[in-house]
């Protein structure tokens, strides 16, 4: 076995893979969140749809996104491998185990939390990513006044296989910018007005919160980034930014749509 193969097949190496993929996924969350802020804009999804197009069709981002999918798969796969190894390390369990006395619940249930998240990701991608790429969705046509960008007129165009997913041109005569986009925003808006779907999202974000409260800090510990002066910062980021703020903002999106429609 080569040195590197040996390194990554060791227990520490596998953990390093978990850590690096996990941290990469964390950085993605920030990007994803910032992008999704477009949903809060009151523009009938014009910004959001443009953003969706950018994310799926700009080559560097596409490369990164495949890295991302790989990370998710590797993260889940190695979690499975490690869990099976860990089960084998204690074939006979304790009759009584007072786990809460010595460790936080989240740290002991990363597998369950991760499984919830994986299921969520599959649903989430199936509903949006898959549909966006493959489903016969209607289009939204935005007519944006060049004088006043706040003045946007929107109309729906039916599905047309020949139409570009996204087009953008300026009609100088009309003084308008015409944007035609496959209307992912509508799909999102519709989904987020379904209560059970919103509930699933919120629940998943709770799982994300717990997963990151432990996971973020744990990733640094695994890499060995442990420094008296910086550990408090990592803990703060792990708990308050990744554990609370980010999941909260993600959860706010479906809730926002749900409330908007009531």
């Amino acid at each position, binding site marked *: 076995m080569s*040195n*590197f193969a*040996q*390194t990554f097949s*060791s*227990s*520490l*190496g*596998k*953990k*390093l893979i978990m850590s690096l993929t996990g941290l990469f996924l964390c950085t993605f969350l920030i990007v994803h969140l910032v992008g999704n802020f477009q949903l809060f804009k009151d523009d009938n999804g014009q910004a959001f749809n443009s953003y969706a197009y950018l994310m799926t069709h700009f080559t560097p981002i596409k490369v990164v996104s495949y890295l991302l999918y790989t990370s998710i798969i590797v993260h889940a796969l190695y979690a499975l491998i*490690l869990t099976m*190894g*860990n089960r*084998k*390390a*204690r*074939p*006979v*369990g*304790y*009759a*009584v*185990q*007072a*786990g809460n*006395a*010595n*460790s*936080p619940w989240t*740290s*002991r249930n*990363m597998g369950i939390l991760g499984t919830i998240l994986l299921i969520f990701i599959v649903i989430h991608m199936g509903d949006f990513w898959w549909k966006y790429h493959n489903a016969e969705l209607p289009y939204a046509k935005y007519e944006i006044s060049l004088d006043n960008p706040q003045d946007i007129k929107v109309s729906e165009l039916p599905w047309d296989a020949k139409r570009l997913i996204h087009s953008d041109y300026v009609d100088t005569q009309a003084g308008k910018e015409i944007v035609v986009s496959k209307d992912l925003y509508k799909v999102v808006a519709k989904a987020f007005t379904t209560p059970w779907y919103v509930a699933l999202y919120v629940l998943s974000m709770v799982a994300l919160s717990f997963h990151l409260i*432990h996971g973020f*800090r*744990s990733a640094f*510990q*695994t*890499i*060995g*980034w*442990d420094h008296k002066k910086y550990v408090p910062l990592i803990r703060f980021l792990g708990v308050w930014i990744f554990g609370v703020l980010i999941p909260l903002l993600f959860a706010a999106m479906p809730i926002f749509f749900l409330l908007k429609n009531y």
Partner: protein
Amino acid sequence: MSGNMNLTLKVWRQKNESSKGQFVTYKAGDVSPDMSFLEMLDVVNEGLVKKGDEPIHFDHDCREGICGSCSLHINGRPHGPKHGVATCQLHMRSFEDGQTVVIEPWRASAFPIIKDLATNRSAFERIQRAGGYVSVNTGGVPDANEIAIPKVIADEAFSSATCIGCGACVAACKNASAMLFVSAKVSQLALLPQGQPERYRRVQAMVAQMDEEGFGSCTNTGACEAECPVGISLTNIARMNRDYFTAKLFKEDEV
């Protein structure tokens, strides 16, 4: 003496490594709160021997918390409910009259059961042998004050070196991981100047042996640190990880 307690013990009994074990219930009567947990078991054993039964086997020796022999999982926790002590220093006043106490051996495939509550912890021995030393022969060493070691470093190395090798970290870990134990030794020598020449070899050798022994991997739950009778800190694990990855990815030392 008034204030004595009566307890119900559910004790894991297993004849030897290959046989099947089960819980057996015993009554421990007239238990003084001043007894240590092991002394309470001594009394139960005296009763068993007198009845012609086999006494409960458990490892123990110094009974002052330093040799690391004692190893009981009591009511779901290694070394019982009290923080920062080994079982031998756990006193019965930490229990209540009428309580049921479940006593189990350390559970890990790397620690096979020898009998009842005694386990074979020789996996720890093999890990230490793989590299837990500074390769110096007797004699021919420099004067002890030749190397000045900053007090903070010396103190930190000392804290890592206080590990008593009891295995509570493995017992507490939901993955039966030995990371705290291994990292404590790796850290002690990685911190000190004497350990530098073999620093990156040592960490690779010891981790490789740890993996070979079949311990689980670390998921940073912190249960090991919380249950360690001498308070070995998780920082050691981070330090070992750092050294291991540095060794594997950036150093040319191989084992």
